[in-house]
């Protein structure tokens, strides 16, 4: 193609060269790449320009007085005179709270149900199957509304507050549980705990190394746990027992002291974790079934008990397969928590909506909400899929 016959006119040879050039696969690639890039960039720029046209994307209004109160807060104290930033942050903390506890609950519950589906107990397996099918084919929103209005709001009124041995109280005002309250020296205790954690980690490393190097069982987890518990106990006594259990008391309209969980939080938590547990159960079941049957049979042949087979052979392998889908499921939970708006849970969607309504600044608040959910997703992905990288490190590349 490149060897041109001699004796052509310069124009013809130039033309031929250009023609040859257009047929060159590499050139075509570059041109096509440039064209797609240009199209994509044009689209992005168009959207950006339209957005700029509609809003100045100026966040000053967030520094104005919020003007509305938030009843249920987690580690924040925003009220009507706080800034909108502060109120928004209170919403973010509520989303974080529901996400964290929702994930923990649904993982625990889902693991149990997933294992139950493969149980040798006929009833347990059938019930778990029924549960999964019932939940997966019902819209979450129906579930959330039901859990709130038909379950949590049906708890006794505050005037007839029920109590469990006088320490925990239940009513549709709150669920109040005893909770340790930090006293003087709690800071020192927290520091000591952190130190204990570091030491325990060191012990785990040393023992785990020894186990690998010598092949003798060294029980790194038990050793680390023992060290940590011992450190915690010593620190607790040494700092003068800085935590005192505090039982909640019934007051006229609510409870004082202790840990008080609002009905909205409990209802949303219930709905989200029961709902997600069904999906987690399916992931767990799939991952366990993906472990070759032979592995289990081999373990059984070696004389391992059912529990040992599960937690030494099956679960560690299943964990590797289930982590990525679990991470996605947990991200789903974080996103789904935004339906809390229908039962008055003041999460970031609810608070954001109120701010939009009061200020009229829709696009900036949306940008803020999107950024917050993205950050949350990234953190979840990092925390859950992060270990996956480590698993791959320790077990080597999969075939």
């Amino acid at each position, binding site marked *: 193609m490149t060897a041109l016959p001699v004796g052509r006119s310069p124009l013809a040879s130039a033309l031929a060269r250009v023609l040859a050039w257009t047929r060159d696969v590499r050139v075509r690639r570059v041109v096509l790449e440039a064209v797609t890039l240009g199209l994509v960039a044009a689209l992005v720029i168009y959207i950006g320009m339209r957005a700029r046209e509609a809003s100045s994307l100026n966040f000053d209004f967030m520094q104005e007085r919020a003007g509305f109160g938030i009843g249920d807060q987690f580690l924040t104290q925003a009220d009507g005179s706080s800034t909108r930033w502060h109120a928004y942050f209170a919403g973010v903390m509520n989303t974080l709270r529901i996400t964290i506890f929702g994930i923990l609950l649904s993982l625990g519950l889902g693991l149990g149900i997933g294992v139950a589906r493969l149980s040798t107990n006929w009833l347990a397996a059938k019930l778990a199957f029924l549960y999964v099918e019932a939940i997966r084919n019902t819209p979450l929103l129906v579930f959330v509304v039901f859990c709130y209005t038909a379950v949590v709001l049906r708890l006794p009124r505050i005037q007839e507050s029920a109590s469990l041995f006088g320490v925990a109280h239940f009513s549709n005002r709150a669920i109040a549980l005893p909770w340790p309250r930090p006293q003087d020296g709690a800071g020192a205790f927290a520091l000591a705990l952190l130190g204990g954690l570091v030491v325990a980690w060191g012990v785990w490393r040393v023992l785990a190394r020894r186990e690998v190097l010598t092949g003798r069982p060294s029980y790194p987890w038990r050793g680390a746990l023992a060290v940590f518990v011992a450190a915690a106990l010593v620190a607790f006594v040494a700092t003068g027992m800085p935590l005192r259990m505090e039982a909640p008391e019934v007051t006229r309209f609510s409870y004082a002291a202790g840990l008080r969980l609002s009905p909205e939080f409990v209802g949303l938590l219930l709905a989200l974790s029961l709902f997600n547990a069904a999906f987690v159960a399916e992931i767990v079941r799939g991952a366990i079934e993906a472990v070759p049957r032979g592995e289990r049979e081999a373990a059984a042949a070696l004389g391992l008990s059912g529990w040992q087979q599960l937690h030494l052979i099956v679960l560690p392998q299943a964990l590797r397969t289930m982590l990525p889908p679990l991470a996605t499921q947990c991200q789903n939970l974080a996103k789904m928590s935004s339906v809390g708006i*229908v039962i008055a849970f003041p999460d970031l969607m609810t608070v954001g909506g109120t701010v939009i309504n009061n200020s009229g600044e829709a696009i900036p608040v949306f940008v803020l909400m999107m950024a917050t959910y993205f950050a949350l997703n990234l953190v979840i992905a990092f925390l859950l899929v992060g270990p996956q990288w480590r698993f791959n490190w320790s077990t080597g590349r999969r075939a």
Partner: protein
Amino acid sequence: MTAVRLPLESGRGLRSAREVLAAAWEWARTRLFNSPANAVVSLLLIVLLAWASFLFLRWMAFEADWGVVRTNRRLLLVGRFPQDQEWRIWPVVYALTALLGWTWGSWGRVTRWAAATMALIGVLVLPTLAGWGGALAFLPAVTLAALVHLVALRLATRPAWRTRVRVASGVGWFLALPLTLALLHVRGGVDPTLWGGLYLNLVVASGAVMGALPLGIALALARTSSFRALRWASTVYVEVMRGLPLPVMLTLSWLALRTFLPSWGGLDEVALVYRVTIAFALFTAAFIAEAVRGGLNSIPRGQREAAAALGLQWWQMTAYVTMPQAIRNSLPALAGEFIGLFMTTTLVAVVGLTDMLQAARGTTEQPDFFGRQKEVLLFVGMLFWVTAFALSRLSARLERALAGKGTRRA
């Protein structure tokens, strides 16, 4: 599965009570009490189950009042759709039920279980909830579905016809939505703000599927393409969509889609229902893209190389070799996405549309039915459940039927 059969089922007639009892005990022993731990678990579960069913039955018998559903069934099914315009809806109902029967027939027979469940719903549940009139209105449609089912079943037994019957079912589903929309718009049409109830959920869901499927496949192809810009753009799109909560996306579409749409041809004047459907489609496309990408990735490299060796162009390879297999491989995931989409259409409430769930929540405002939220929510949940469950069974059947076809990896 059934190592021990109850004598009742064995077809040898009734034996003595002792034998029945012994067989029952044998059945329970092997399944419920095969180890001490299992025995404890079983007992606990039995007690729990008994307690829960007692509470539920007591509520059903003495407290529940289904009048709220009977009175409001129209509101729940079609919202405030004008009564004199109902001729636009019935053909769709007939078409859909017939299509369902046809599809089910062409991919296999209705199992005894499914038939029994449907009969139970038809005979017991529907009249209780919706009144005899409400149930009878659907009788012709159900009869048609059953007849069509039998015809499809008979035709599908002939190998020569099987493929044609199946293709027809697929074509039917793709024509269903245009038919629905056409009926809603011909002869003056019904304003989209009047669409409501379950019908709205169905229209939004199917519209979103039709939009999301091609877009999702395109995104999956872009994401596996060798062009960097396409790959990156698709990746960013998919990740952004997957990172956003749907309520945020919906509200955004409501507020901002109009801002971003160019004003050519009144594009920025489209009705809210359509904008919401677009939002659902844009959102679902990201998930479909991931499902299809999973299917594409599962195709062995050798197939592409073989296709290239045969001299197939990229689009030929995609259309004839990779995409059919990718779709087949990702069918379970795709079905899951569609069912999920159908259920998340309840979120249209965020933008103020009155779908079935919102209609249901509204009924408790009527003084006669104050505080009947449990009944109406249960009904709504059950309707969603039945639809979604039927779809998931259908997809499982489809999957099994397709699994026998084509090449499978060793």
